[in-house]
């Protein structure tokens, strides 16, 4: 039986059609994957389901009953809970309070009694099989446990539909396994689940049904058994265009960067490698392998304790971001929202910000004409979708924001470009564009690229050489023909097995 159906729902935001005549059904006790590129309307659909946004038209039916008016509390009263990507808990309150307060508000209680419900909280946490002290402050828990608290809160609300919005982004594989087990248990209890993810392998692993949005339209809604990852990708972009092996042959033997015995306590140890001109070097490893920490050390945000870094044969010290920039190192962080962009400033300013000292007039003032010209050049080169370079960065889609971050650093003509998960959370189409640009730049300017990524296919498609990291050290190096999806996958799986055994 369908738990919820939305029929012919549309939504417009100031001129943009976010959803067009969408019809969407979720059955009781099914895990329903919802996928689509950024800007395809997933979040809008979720917000309508949760009652946070009203739809412009259409009809919502829950358990066979037509719903007329709809607000945040209506959603909760009908048993719909959303676990948002940002988790949406209160870090300043205890686990117990976080679990209880939603329901207490929904029941319109005036007095908040902890004693009355303490046993219920303990029971729910037991049921979930999680070992969390309910008196602890949520802000002191790791992300994975916070997510479990959010799920516990949903259960306390007697949820019948649980919407998980990109729940795995910040989790280790082990934690993902635990989450999937939990989700399957909830499914057995008859709870419907909507699972949103950019990682299609996770969708394939977990979901019974998959619905695909493209440009605000529902282009397919099928059983997973009728689909493959490739088919889903085709539905998402309309054509298959990604992940063809794309490696240029212009690597020169000249070393642009050489690292010897780089070490940072509690982060990584004895890292040695070299990077040649024009080379794309892949770095892959599980979460907690030290790859991101290594990148932070190379860029000076969290400098290494010991070891040597040479740029173009010259030994350098990198103790700050300024040092790194001075020596021609550029860094595109994973979290572009908080680290890469000045969100409330224009595209133009964001592109120009790292190279302001080069865009000056003869007396040292900022030359706005130079900046305008530069911004226009990069908007064109990177195919950033915008009609105006003065637009505020926040208003762009994730993919376009990532392109701006990239343009900012490419504008300073770096010797070494570090990309840390450059395509996390951005859509398939934008991904392809980003890699084409990076490849071009590496080939033409001879910059060396260090590509850190979770996605194996991204690494195998674009890298000349691959380093596999494990527990803060380089565990393996793959060159040329050795670089295959299989080889890397096998290595990472082996690491996970060992880790799982260690924990036992």
């Amino acid at each position, binding site marked *: 039986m369908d738990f919820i159906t939305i029929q012919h729902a549309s939504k417009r935001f100031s001129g943009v059609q976010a959803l067009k005549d969408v019809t969407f059904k979720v059955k009781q006790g099914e895990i329903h994957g919802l996928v689509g590129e950024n800007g395809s309307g997933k979040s809008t659909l979720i917000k309508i389901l949760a009652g946070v946004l009203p739809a412009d038209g259409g009809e919502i039916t829950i358990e066979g009953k037509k719903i007329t008016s709809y607000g945040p509390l209506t959603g909760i009263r009908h048993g719909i809970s959303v676990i948002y990507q940002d988790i*949406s808990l209160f870090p300043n*309150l205890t686990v117990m309070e976080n679990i209880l307060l939603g329901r207490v508000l929904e029941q319109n209680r005036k007095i908040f009694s902890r004693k009355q419900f303490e046993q219920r909280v303990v029971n729910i946490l037991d049921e979930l099989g999680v070992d969390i002290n309910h008196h602890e402050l949520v802000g002191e828990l790791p992300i994975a446990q916070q997510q479990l608290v959010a799920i516990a809160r949903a259960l306390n609300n007697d949820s019948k539909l649980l919407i998980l919005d990109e729940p795995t982004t910040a989790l280790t594989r082990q934690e993902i396994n635990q989450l999937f087990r939990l989700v399957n248990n909830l499914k057995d209890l008859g709870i419907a689940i909507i699972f949103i993810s950019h990682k299609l392998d996770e969708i394939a692993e977990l979901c019974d049904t998959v619905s695909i949005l493209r440009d605000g339209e529902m282009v397919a809604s099928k059983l997973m058994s009728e689909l493959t990852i490739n088919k889903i990708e085709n539905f998402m972009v309309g054509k298959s265009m990604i992940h063809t092996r794309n490696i240029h042959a212009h690597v020169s033997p000249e070393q642009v960067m050489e690292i010897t015995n780089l070490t940072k306590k509690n982060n990584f140890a004895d890292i040695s490698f070299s990077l040649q001109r024009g080379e794309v070097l892949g770095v892959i490893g599980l979460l907690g392998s*030290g790859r991101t920490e290594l990148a932070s050390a190379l860029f000076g945000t969290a400098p290494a304790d010991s070891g040597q870094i040479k740029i173009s044969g010259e030994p350098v010290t990198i103790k700050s971001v300024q040092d790194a920039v001075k020596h021609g190192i550029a860094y595109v962080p994973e979290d572009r929202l908080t680290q890469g962009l000045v969100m409330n400033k224009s595209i133009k300013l964001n592109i120009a910000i790292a190279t302001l000292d080069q865009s000056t007039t003869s007396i040292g003032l900022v030359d706005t004409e130079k900046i305008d010209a530069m911004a226009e050049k990069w908007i064109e080169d990177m195919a950033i979708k915008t009609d105006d370079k003065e637009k505020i960065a926040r208003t762009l889609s994730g993919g376009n924001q990532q392109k701006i971050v990239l343009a900012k650093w490419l504008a300073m003509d770096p010797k070494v470009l570090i990309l840390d998960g450059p395509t996390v959370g951005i859509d398939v189409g934008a991904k392809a564009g980003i890699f084409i640009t990076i490849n071009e730049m590496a080939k033409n300017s001879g910059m060396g690229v260090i590509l850190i990524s979770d996605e194996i296919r991204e690494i195998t498609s674009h890298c000349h050489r691959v380093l596999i990291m494990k527990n803060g050290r380089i565990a393996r190096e793959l060159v040329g023909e050795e670089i295959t999806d299989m080889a890397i996958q096998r290595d990472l799986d082996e690491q996970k097995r060992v880790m799982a055994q260690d924990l036992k």
Partner: protein
Amino acid sequence: MKARSNLLKSREFLLGITIVILLVVNSLLAPSFLTYTNIVNLLKSFTVLGIFSLGVLLVVISGGVDVSFTAIAQVVQYAVVYLFLNNIQGNIFLSFVLAIVMGALLGFLNGYLIHRYKMPAIIITIATQNLFYGLMYVITEGQLLYIIPEYFWKISNTMLFKQYAANGAVSGISMTTVIWLVLSIIIALLLKFTVLGRSIYMMGGNPVAAQRIGVNGRRTTMFVYGTMGAIAGIGGIVHVSIVQTVIPNSIVGQELQVIAAVILGGASITGGKGSVLGTFLGVLLFAILSNSLTLLQISSYWYNVFTGSIILVSVLLNAVQELQQQKQKIRVRVENA
């Protein structure tokens, strides 16, 4: 239990220890310090600041700030006394009712502007502070009210647990202090055991999440600033009862000291954190400090220097602790070679 192991780190505990140390040092240096008379007088002289701090605590926990409450207290105080002198046959009870209603209305105006226009509370309340205070000056031309109805004095002159000195002087816990303590208990209960109170913490801790689970942002904001206004009104009446004259510029200017006491008491200026006990101890620390300067005959010019240093040290302590934790956090379990 976890809560107990955190006791040593808690702000209340740290403040308590500091206060005890100050008490010991003071009583060694000035024998008159730890006397009943001195203590009850000390409490009385910090009653107004203490009352204000309760309203500020609510506002700060909710993630906001209010610098207009001194102006509200001033305006309400002037208006009530003026009305009772000229227009209405008043009494103590009526003075509090009027003060609460007028204060709450002015507070609601703050709350409305802050919620409706999503403006930073600091900007709105700087504006309303000047507005309220300025209008009062325009209307009253800054005239003092020297003679006030006698029943106002009675509040502060009524004492509990009286003790008589050999020379006939009476000392005891003033009714004003009782008002402060009773208000403290009410606010503490409200914060801890009502859904509304927890909503204030939710809004301060994560406003987006609060909206998503159904906290009524408008109602909570209105409540917080309205209560701040009402408490300011009560403070205004208590103030006139202690000072026994209406001086139009005697309250405005204290707002930063009140906010400082609340922050010192462990409330977070970014919202979501704070307790009545901590705030009470924060006020007490200020009180003892100022008193010890007097008893030790140190120039009162030093008072601000000490105040500033205490706030700086308490804030730095937090920041240093946090930085340390960040540093020691194990991010990767590095394998031994």
